């Protein structure tokens, strides 16, 4: 299948630390792609590059063959990319519904029409609210719509973040450790949700995750990073039996 999102030879340095060293990644349309690697391997930095929160000194970014090296983060959402954060980054003082509505910001249309409630704005608001409720239902959050986010348990907050990302109707979604800190039950639930997002909604998923059982079971193929550089790429089975990977990563853990 065609390449959906791609980066080539990306370099990111923080002073002396090379967080991404000549990293390339090719995400195919409609797939679930895993990105794994030990702590500090540069996965989050790579995500920040892809969602344009982090500038890079060398390399190229393509979204469906369009060069997007200089896009700003909010423009990426218009292209169809959404992301979640490794450390939950929600509007904690606001309700779940507000959080999801903010996620659908790119669908409000002309901001001035929205501000002055010109004809159509009311309809748009209603539609966005209905969609927000649907998105909440997809993530089993419909009972928490009016709850202020900071009062929700951790696992729910993770799902709110996912709901917020989905609210922009993305074509590709970057998930940075969606099940970190969740218990087994929550992890299993999120795993199911990730599959649904991909199969039913047709959204391409890029997944950073330390939970190997999840990565190995949901991903179509996996990239392994080590010390900021590409180490391997392959199907879960290939990765599990790759000696380099076992040395660098899996071996160390087992």
């Amino acid at each position: 299948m065609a390449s959906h999102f791609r980066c080539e030879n990306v370099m990111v340095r923080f002073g002396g630390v090379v967080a991404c060293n000549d990293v390339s990644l090719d995400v195919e349309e409609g797939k679930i792609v895993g990105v794994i690697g030990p702590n500090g391997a540069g996965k989050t930095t790579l995500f920040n590059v892809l969602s344009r929160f982090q500038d890079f000194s060398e390399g190229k970014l393509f979204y469906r063959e369009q060069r997007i090296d200089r896009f700003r983060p909010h423009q990426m959402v218009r292209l169809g990319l959404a992301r979640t954060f490794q450390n939950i980054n929600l509007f904690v003082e606001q309700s779940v519904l507000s959080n999801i509505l903010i996620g659908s910001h790119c669908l409000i249309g002309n901001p001035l029409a929205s501000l002055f409630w010109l004809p159509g704005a009311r309809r748009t608001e209603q539609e966005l609210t209905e969609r927000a409720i649907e998105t909440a239902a997809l993530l089993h959050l419909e009972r928490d719509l009016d709850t202020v986010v900071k009062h929700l348990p951790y696992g729910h907050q993770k799902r709110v973040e996912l709901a917020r990302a989905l609210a922009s109707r993305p074509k590709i979604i970057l998930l940075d450790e969606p099940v970190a800190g969740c218990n087994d039950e929550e992890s299993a639930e999120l795993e199911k949700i990730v599959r649904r997002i991909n199969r039913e909604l047709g959204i391409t998923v890029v997944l950073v995750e330390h939970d190997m059982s999840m990565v190995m079971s949901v991903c179509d193929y996996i990239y392994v990073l080590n010390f900021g550089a590409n180490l391997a790429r392959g199907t879960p089975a290939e990765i599990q039996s790759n000696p380099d990977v076992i040395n660098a990563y899996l071996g160390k853990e087992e």
Partner: protein
Amino acid sequence: MNEMGAAGRRFARGNALEAANLAPEAAAHAQRQRLALADAKARFQKQNWVGTVALFAVAALFPVLPGVEGWMAYTVALVIIYVIATQGVAVLTGYTGLVTVGHGGFLAIGAYTSALLTKHYHTELITGLIAGGLMSAFIGCLLGLIFLRLSGAFMAIGTLGFAFFVGTIVNNVNLFEGREGISLPKNRILIWEIGDVGFYYVALAVFALTTLLVYCLVRSGVGRALMALRDAEKAAESCGINRVFYRTLAFSLSAFITGLAGVLNGHIVRFIASEVYADIWYSVDFLVAAIVGGSSFLMGPLLGGIFVALLPFFLEELRELAFILKGVALILVLMFAPAGLAEVFGRPWRAWRRNKLERVRNDGARVSRASLDKLTKLEAR
């Protein structure tokens, strides 16, 4: 895209009932409950409207009440002007999270724009309001762009610098006639001259408009974007919110509202001099009013503006004491009710509503007639 399943397409089209099939286990009950909740919320909104309209109706009757004299209308108009200016501050400080200690500068820009137009081109008040508001919004837009990278204490210092800058200009550029000041003729609306009572109604009308503007803003996607930037800037950008655009917009709107207050402030006393407008006390007063009243509540500027504007009035001889009392009030509020008086006074009200919603949620079957009709219609589709 062609791999997208039927459910995905439904999701993409966003049809409420169809997409509910995505989670069939919860859908039926949820839909009823949702309608009941929407119903209750609509009722609350109606109550808000009725309350606001009643408030304005009382205010509109005030000058014709027996025993109310022209000077009283004048005084209340001054208070209204304070409240409007504070609304401007609230847009920036309360909803966008950018603390401003410089809105006296926008007050001055509004006042001088209209005063100069009136003096040199004999314009009337409505023209003055439009011009003053727009000029202030324009400068606000520029300031927003200049201060794009500032936040927190740096923003406070930057805006304070802006107030000083405006003060220096009106003090030293001949056009503004410094301490000599500009005297204005009797106020006119279109071709009619107005007195104190007439001016009161103009101020009230402007207040109604700015209140409507803030209300629309807060409930719109734009208001959500501003509050998102306030609460978590990075997360907001990840939601597609253009930080540069919305910050600049917030600055412009905020400056527009305070600029309108400035026009009124100049025309009500019909004298504009740098002695008044170069002083930063206005800036401080408005910020105190916004914080004491509660800058992210619609009622906040009203409560805070009344407090700050009327304090010196009640103290009469002891005006100096007003500064101290304002300071004390500010400290008390920051210590015990950091969200402001509006939040404190609104607590029982919000608790009542929360309970009501909770009851509706637990008892989702009770749906109003209108909602049931809506439900049947949706199901028929």
